[in-house]
């Protein structure tokens, strides 16, 4: 018995993996009552351009985009079960957390935060798993 697997398309403007030069990842995949969302970086959804800023400002852009992505897929931030946050320096964790707390409902989902060296000068990457 095979479980259903469905690719969730990018909202308008977001990087589309079928386009040349885009990373080989789908924005999100739905399977078995869950939506698995790729690690998001701060991107302007109108232009598709990267938005470089502070850890706090990149976090805000990512979470606004994440909300839009989840809602377009029929889910929402209050259906998120687990979040992984990667930041370029753990010294920035409080700055990320302050913005994060304003976007997620209370009680918030499970979360892991860790410092990591991220590709291409990115300061924050956020990925999550949500109920479909």
């Amino acid at each position, binding site marked *: 018995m095979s479980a259903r697997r469905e690719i969730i398309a990018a909202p308008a403007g977001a990087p589309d993996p079928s386009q040349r030069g885009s990373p*080989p*990842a789908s924005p999100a*995949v739905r399977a*078995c009552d869950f939506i698995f969302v*790729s*690690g998001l970086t701060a991107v302007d959804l109108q232009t598709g351009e990267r938005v470089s800023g502070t850890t706090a400002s990149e976090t805000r852009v990512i979470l606004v985009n994440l909300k839009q992505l989840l809602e377009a897929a029929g889910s929402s931030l209050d259906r998120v079960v687990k979040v992984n946050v990667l930041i370029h320096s753990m010294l920035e964790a409080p700055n990320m957390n302050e913005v994060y707390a304003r976007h997620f409902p209370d009680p918030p989902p499970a979360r892991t935060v860790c410092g*990591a060296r991220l590709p291409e000068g990115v300061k924050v990457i956020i*990925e999550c*798993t949500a109920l479909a």
Partner: protein
Amino acid sequence: MREIIAAPFPGLDLRQHYGHHQSPAVRAGGLIFCSGMLPVDPHTGERHHGTLTSEAHVVLGNLKLLLESAGSSLDRLVQVHALIYDSIEYDVLNRVYRQYVAHGPPARTVWTAQIEAGFKIALDAIAAA
């Protein structure tokens, strides 16, 4: 219900070869959760150190063998965590990775980490059963 997926080839049994206290994969709730995949020879378990490109080919080949033995496939991947030793190799990873996920790639996150035994890549994956 939780079902342990055995190694389809002896080299993929990292518990037997290296004492890692882990199963190759576990099926649960319609999903298959794979242990971190490493560039080891699927028949002998020998470590295949090389370039990120060569290691990535071995890792993705091993993941293919493991998923197919469990009745799934690379086309049914839903989420991948790609750990690489240096973020400068991001484009190199993409070049190899793209060849294995041609049909609607899974959600993915890439970051840099220290990987066991000095390997350049490890993949952590969840697939639809």
